[in-house]
């Protein structure tokens, strides 16, 4: 394994961005740290920010561990990331607009047709559709990892409904309450503009048929969903209604919300439910979570749905490989952020390489998420490797493989004091009338020593993420 880049200490020196935090850490007595850590936990519990893991059972009220040691980016580092993320969000949206219309990128031979159209995330129901401003993915979560001072890689894109932004906001809120002096000593770019920016983004994609101030709602599958807290939190911050499918109905050309003052027309739906459950008249007929007839209203321009149904075809792991090509094709620019080199097991020669190097590689399911169904070769034992060899041989098209990256590490509070732990980053890019990005994002940290898996379902925690002002 290549050497890990430590974001605080490089070549025995504390990097300038972390100098104030290093002092802070050294001056903090152990008992104060204990106290602050319990205080943070109590605050998280009080605001109700808990997380349930899909399919794992257990305690649905479990907290995602919060690590008080912030992660810091300099203004210069962030500038490059920001440009790269904006570029990526623009290209992904151009791709979606294209594949549901003229498919020029396929005609040009840049992406194999079957990867796009013979893909479960490709929605025939929206072919030929042009959503307002031709935006398909309104909130793009770009997962990034760092391997060196100037080396970042995009791990994956999330074009449907990336979650976690409530942690970004709460982490900051809680840090400011517990350590106000840190925010005086350091000039840290604020993140609290996110809710306004999101509201503005959603309102900016209201359908043409909407005259006046658009009515925006968040559509949630309900309180048993693992991200329900986030849905209600964002609705509160934006000052919009949080609704479930049963609160909405379709009549005539529009979608309506039941209110105590009678039906109110809904113009923009920020949906946090999957395509398959949106409308039993178009997708799964047994879905009780959606709104019958919603897709017809959407298709006929009576309501906007964010993200657009079918947007998932852009964040498929098989499509990911082609994002740099998309950037060149649609924007005529060189990609600012790099992809992780990826082997497609669907290609026989690449599959052969993967099978010969399983102990060095990370193998992922093409459609998987959340760190499930994944092999981390260097950390796996022989039986796990053999199990994956069998799976890949059975269904090669279902797997991709990547080199094991030496994810950067950030100082993190652990039992013994402070120790480096591996981190990733998910910034949230908003696409509407403008492309907007609040500085920072959600840093996830693998709390187990040596672990590279940052997913909250597998022992991951979160950190406040700072972008220092110029």
């Amino acid at each position, binding site marked *: 394994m290549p050497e890990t880049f430590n974001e605080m200490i490089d070549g025995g020196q504390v990097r300038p961005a972390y100098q104030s935090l290093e002092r802070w850490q050294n001056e903090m007595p152990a008992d104060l740290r204990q106290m602050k850590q319990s205080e943070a936990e109590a605050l998280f519990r009080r605001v109700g920010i808990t997380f349930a893991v899909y399919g794992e059972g257990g305690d649905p009220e479990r907290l995602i561990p919060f690590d008080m040691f912030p992660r810091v980016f300099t203004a210069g580092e962030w500038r490059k990331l920001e440009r790269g993320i904006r570029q990526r969000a623009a290209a992904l949206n151009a791709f979606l607009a294209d594949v*549901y*219309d003229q*498919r020029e990128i396929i005609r040009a031979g840049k992406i194999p*047709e*079957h990867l796009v*159209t*013979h*893909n*479960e995330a*490709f929605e*025939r*129901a*929206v*072919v*030929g*559709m042009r959503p307002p401003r031709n935006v398909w993915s309104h909130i793009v979560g770009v997962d990034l990892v760092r391997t060196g001072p100037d080396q970042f890689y995009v791990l994956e894109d999330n074009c449907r409904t990336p979650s976690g932004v409530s942690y970004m906001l709460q982490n900051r809120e809680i840090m400011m309450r517990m350590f106000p002096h840190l925010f005086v000593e350091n000039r840290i770019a604020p993140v609290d503009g996110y809710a306004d920016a999101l509201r503005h983004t959603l309102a900016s994609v209201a359908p043409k048929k909407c005259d006046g101030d658009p009515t925006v709602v968040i559509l949630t599958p309900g309180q048993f969903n693992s991200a329900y807290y986030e849905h209600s939190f964002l609705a509160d911050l934006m000052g919009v209604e949080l609704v479930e499918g049963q609160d909405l*109905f*379709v*009549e*005539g*050309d*529009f979608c309506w919300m039941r209110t105590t003052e009678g039906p109110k027309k809904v113009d923009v739906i920020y949906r946090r439910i999957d395509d398959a459950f949106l409308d*039993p*008249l*178009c997708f799964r*007929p047994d879905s009780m979570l959606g709104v*019958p*007839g919603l897709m*017809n*209203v959407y*298709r*006929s*321009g*009576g309501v906007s749905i964010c993200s657009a149904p079918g947007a998932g075809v852009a964040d498929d792991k098989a499509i990911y490989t082609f994002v740099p090509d998309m950037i060149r094709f649609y924007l005529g620019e060189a990609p600012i952020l790099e992809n992780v080199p990826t082997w497609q097991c669907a290609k026989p020669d690449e599959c052969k390489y993967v099978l010969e190097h399983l102990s060095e590689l990370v193998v992922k399911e093409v459609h998987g998420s959340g760190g499930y169904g994944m092999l981390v070769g260097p950390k796996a034992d022989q039986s796990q490797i053999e199990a994956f060899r069998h799976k890949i041989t059975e269904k090669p098209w279902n797997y991709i493989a990547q080199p094991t990256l030496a994810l950067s590490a950030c100082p993190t509070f652990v039992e013994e004091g402070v120790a480096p732990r591996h981190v990733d980053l998910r910034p949230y890019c908003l696409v509407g009338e403008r492309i907007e990005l609040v500085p920072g994002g959600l840093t996830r940290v693998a709390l187990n020593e040596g672990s590279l898996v940052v997913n909250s379902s597998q022992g991951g925690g979160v950190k406040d993420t700072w972008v220092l002002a110029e």
Partner: protein
Amino acid sequence: MKLSVSHVTRYVFETPVTRLIQSHRLTPSRCANQRVISWEVNMLKAVRGAAFRDGAGDWTETVSVDGPLDAFEIEVTGEIETEDFAGVLRDHREKVPPSAYLTPTARTWPSQPLRELAEDTLAPLDGRPAIERAHALSNAVADAVEYVPGETESLTTAAEALEGGKGVCQDQTHVLMAVAQMSGVPARYVTGYLFSAMPDHISEASHAWAELYVDDLGWVGFDPSNRVCPDDRYIRLGSGYDSQDAAPIRGVVSGGAGERLDVSVKVRDIAASEQQQQ
């Protein structure tokens, strides 16, 4: 051929429903194979809206009715002139790429017997023209799944229908789609009406058949139930990934119980009935 259609769908609810909402694809496709003379979809009390033509070229409309409602009736009446293009769907404007119809659904999901049926049928036809191979698949399905009503249900899959060896046009269509898709031929489910002058001709309330994408010809219809390609006796309404996706009427009701459905379809040859009247 000039055909007239009268298609009445009647729902009766033992306990009244509080609300009904449906998505309709009850309007004939726009293509050279057929030209609408007149066409109407009538319902009492329904609010209509959210209408559009989708990427597959189908006209979709939304209707809803607030209850209490103990019955609901949809009456489709129209006259249409059809032309025989030997199954080829001609001048049908659509934007969905044929390759999107290679993805199976739960109802057309592959199985080993389906795979064998496809391979056994096509192995001797290696290198033969695509249209010949498509005909062979359609005939093989007609041989493998006998037309017998009452043996299958609306949720029966292609694999199950092949295993049972019996089914209705829906099942035969699903089996044909499955074997075609497995062989790399895009296939879709088509709904419509069929005029039948002969008493032994198979015609259900609403007929269904498959379209296979054949290079150089485009979409070509195959009706394994009648071992023919759709001609001027066929009226095309719409298409989809399977029977559920292509259904001319998809709906949900709130509240209520005990739904009973009566469907009557009459397709007449206008010229023949005018002669009779004279």
